C-alpha cells in the first residue's frame, strides 16, 4: 500500500517527503537529547537545593542548641559571660529562619514544617528562655529546675522537628534525583534510538536516490549515446520513478518519432533515387533513341550528297531518310506529351467520330510497314460513334499496333478488333509475340519503363503506353492487357460510346467540339 502511494507521488514529492521525514526525525533526536540534558540539570539543581536546606537546617539547629546550652551553663555557673552565644544566636535567629523559609518556599509541606519549627523556636525563646533569664535574676535554682524540666522538653521537641524536617527533605531529594535520572535515561535512550534510526534512514535514502535516480539517469544517458551513435532502435525501460519515468517516456517517444522520420526520409530517398535512376535511364534512352534514326538520316543524306546512285537506289535511300526523320519527330512528340501530362497541360479536342473508320485508317497505315506480319482488322460494319480527340486516339491505336509489331520480331498475326460492349466500345490489339514477363507486368504503364527491353535491341522510349493510358483515361475509358510470355500479348481498351447517337447516325459525321 505504501509502495502504491509512493508510486503515485512525483519524484520531487518523494524527495521532499523523505527530506522532511529525516528532518523531523533529526529534530526529534535533538529534542530528546535536550530533554535529557535539562532533566539532568534540574536534578543537579534540586540536589544542591536539598543540600542547602539541610545545611541551613543543621546550622539553625546548632544555633538553637548553642543558645540552649549557653542558657543552661548560665543557670549552672551564674556567670553572665557565658550567655554570649545565647545573645549571638538570638541576633542570628530571624535571619537564619527566614533563609530556611526562603529555601523551602516552593515546597508547601516543608514550608509548613519550617513555619511550625520557627514558631516553636520563637516560642522557646520568648516564653521559655527569656522567662528563665527573668527567673534567674530572682532564683537560680528555680531557673535551673525550669531548664531541666520545661527546657529539656522544649529542646527535645525542637530537635524532633528538625529531625523530621531533615528526614523528609532527604526522602524528597532521593525521590527527585531518582525520577530525574529515570527521565534522563529514557530521553538518552530515545535520542540514541532516533539517531540510529536517522542514520539508517539517511543510508536508505541515499540508496534510494542511487537506485531510483542515478541508475535510470545513467541508463538514459547510455541510451542517448547509443542513439546518437546511430542505433535508432534504442529504447529505454520505462521503470524509473516520477520525473525520471517521464524522461524515459519522453526519450522513447522522441526515439520513435526520429526513427519514423528517418524511415520516411529513407523511403523518400529511395523514391528520389528511383526517379533519379529513371531520369538517367531516360537520358540514355533519349540519346540512344534519337541517335539511331539520326545516324540513318545523317548517314544516308551524306551518302546521297557525296556519291552517285541510280534513281531507284536514291529513292530508296530518301524513303529511309523520310521514315527515320518521321520517327525522330514522333519521338519528340512523345517527350512533349510526357511533359504536357506532367505539367497538366494535356488538352483534348473532342469531336464526335466513328471509331470504326479510325481503326480502318490506322490498320492501313501499319499494314505497309512490316512484311513479316499479317495485320487483320475486325470491326463491325456499323459505325462506332465515340466522343474523342481523333489525333490522340490515332496515337493510342498506332502505339498499340507498333508495339504489337515491335514485340513480335518473328512476325505472325496482329489482330485489331473492335466491338460494341453495352454503351461502351471495346478495342483489342492482339499479337503472337514475345509477351510480357509476369515480373514486369505491374510496371508496364509506368513512364520510361521498358522492362528488359532496354538492352534487347527493340527500340522504344518507355513512353508510349504511359501516354496512351493518359489519353484513354482522359476520355473516361480504361486500358489493360493480358499476356503470356512467349505466346503474345493482347492490349484492350474501352471507351464510352457517344450517347444519343446510335448505329443509324451517318457515317463520317463529325462535330467540332467547342
Amino acid at each position, binding site marked *: 500500500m505504501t509502495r502504491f502511494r509512493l508510486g503515485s507521488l512525483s519524484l520531487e514529492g518523494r524527495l521532499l517527503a523523505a527530506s522532511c521525514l529525516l528532518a523531523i526525525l533529526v529534530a526529534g533526536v535533538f529534542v530528546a537529547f535536550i530533554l535529557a540534558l535539562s532533566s539532568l540539570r534540574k536534578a543537579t539543581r534540586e540536589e544542591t537545593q536539598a543540600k542547602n536546606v539541610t545545611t541551613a537546617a543543621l546550622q539553625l539547629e546548632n544555633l538553637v542548641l548553642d543558645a540552649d546550652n549557653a542558657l543552661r551553663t548560665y543557670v549552672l555557673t551564674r556567670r553572665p559571660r557565658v550567655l554570649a552565644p545565647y545573645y549571638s544566636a538570638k541576633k542570628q535567629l530571624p535571619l537564619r529562619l527566614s533563609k530556611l523559609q526562603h529555601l523551602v518556599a516552593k515546597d508547601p509541606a516543608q514550608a509548613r514544617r519550617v513555619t511550625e519549627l520557627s514558631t516553636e523556636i520563637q516560642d522557646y525563646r520568648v516564653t521559655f528562655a527569656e522567662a528563665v533569664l527573668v527567673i534567674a535574676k530572682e532564683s537560680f535554682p528555680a531557673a535551673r529546675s525550669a531548664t531541666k524540666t520545661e527546657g529539656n522538653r522544649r529542646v527535645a521537641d525542637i530537635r524532633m522537628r528538625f529531625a523530621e524536617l531533615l528526614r523528609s527533605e532527604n526522602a524528597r531529594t532521593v525521590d527527585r534525583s531518582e525520577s530525574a535520572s529515570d527521565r534522563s535515561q529514557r530521553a538518552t535512550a530515545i535520542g540514541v534510538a532516533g539517531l540510529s534510526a536517522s542514520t539508517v534512514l539517511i543510508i536508505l535514502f541515499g540508496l534510494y536516490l542511487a537506485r531510483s535516480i542515478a541508475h535510470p539517469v545513467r541508463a538514459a544517458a547510455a541510451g542517448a549515446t547509443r542513439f546518437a551513435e546511430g542505433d535508432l532502435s534504442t529504447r529505454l525501460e520505462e521503470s524509473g520513478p516520477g520525473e525520471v519515468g517521464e524522461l524515459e517516456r519522453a526519450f522513447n517517444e522522441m526515439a520513435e518519432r526520429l526513427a519514423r522520420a528517418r524511415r520516411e526520409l529513407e523511403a523518400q530517398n529511395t523514391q528520389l533515387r528511383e526517379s533519379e535512376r529513371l531520369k538517367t535511364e531516360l537520358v540514355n534512352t533519349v*540519346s*540512344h533513341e534519337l*541517335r*539511331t*534514326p*539520326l*545516324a*540513318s*538520316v*545523317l*548517314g*544516308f543524306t*551524306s*551518302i546521297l550528297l*557525296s*556519291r552517285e546512285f541510280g534513281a531507284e537506289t536514291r529513292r530508296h*535511300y530518301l524513303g*529511309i531518310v523520310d*521514315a*527515320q526523320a518521321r520517327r525522330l519527330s514522333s519521338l519528340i512528340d512523345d517527350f512533349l506529351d510526357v511533359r504536357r501530362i506532367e505539367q497538366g497541360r494535356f488538352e483534348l479536342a473532342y469531336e464526335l467520330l466513328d471509331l470504326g473508320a479510325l481503326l480502318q485508317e490506322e490498320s492501313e497505315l501499319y499494314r505497309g510497314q512490316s512484311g513479316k506480319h499479317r495485320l487483320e482488322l475486325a470491326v463491325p460494319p456499323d459505325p462506332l460513334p465515340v466522343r474523342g480527340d481523333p489525333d490522340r486516339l490515332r496515337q493510342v491505336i498506332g502505339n498499340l499496333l507498333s508495339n504489337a509489331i515491335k514485340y513480335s520480331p518473328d512476325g505472325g498475326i496482329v489482330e485489331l478488333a473492335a466491338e460494341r460492349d453495352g454503351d461502351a466500345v471495346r478495342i483489342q490489339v492482339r499479337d503472337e509475340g514475345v509477351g510480357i514477363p509476369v515480373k514486369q507486368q505491374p510496371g508496364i504503364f509506368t513512364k520510361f519503363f521498358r522492362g528488359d527491353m532496354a*538492352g*534487347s*535491341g*527493340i*527500340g522504344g522510349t518507355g513512353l508510349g503506353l504511359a501516354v496512351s493510358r493518359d489519353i484513354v483515361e482522359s476520355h473516361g475509358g480504361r486500358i489493360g492487357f493480358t499476356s503470356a510470355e512467349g505466346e503474345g500479348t493482347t492490349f484492350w481498351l474501352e471507351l464510352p460510346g457517344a450517347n444519343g447517337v446510335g448505329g443509324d447516325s451517318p457515317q463520317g459525321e463529325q462535330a467540332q467540339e467547342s
Partner: protein
Amino acid sequence: MRKAFNTKPQMKDEKLILICEDEPTLRELIRASLNGAYEFAEARDGFDALGLARELTPDAVVLDLMLPRKSGFEVLAELREDERLRSIPVLVMTAWSDMLDDALAAGADAFISKPFDPDDLKIAVDELLAGQ
C-alpha cells in the same frame, strides 16, 4: 587505297565483312557506306554474330555494342578468346562515346560513334583490312 590493297595476294576474291547491328536501316547504311566493295554477312543480335563469325571467319567485324540477347562487349570477349577468331580486326560502334576506353580495353581495334560519317566508316574499315 583499295587499289593498292587489291594488288596484294589474297585468299579470297573479296573481303568478307560481318555487320552486327540490330537496326535494319543502319545495317543498310553501313553496307551503303562501304560502297558495296566487300562481301557482307549480317547479324541482328549477339548470338547470330558469334554464330556467323565462327561459321564464316570474316575478314573484319563491324560490331554495335548494344545488341539484343548478347551485348557487343560479350561478343568481343568471346571473339578474343577464340583461337581462330582472335586476330580478326573488330570495329565497334555505339551511341556512347564514353565506352571508347572500355571497348579498346576489351580488344577492339577501332571505334566509331553513332551517328557516323559514311566516309569515316569506310576509311576505318579499309585501314583495318590493310593492317591485317
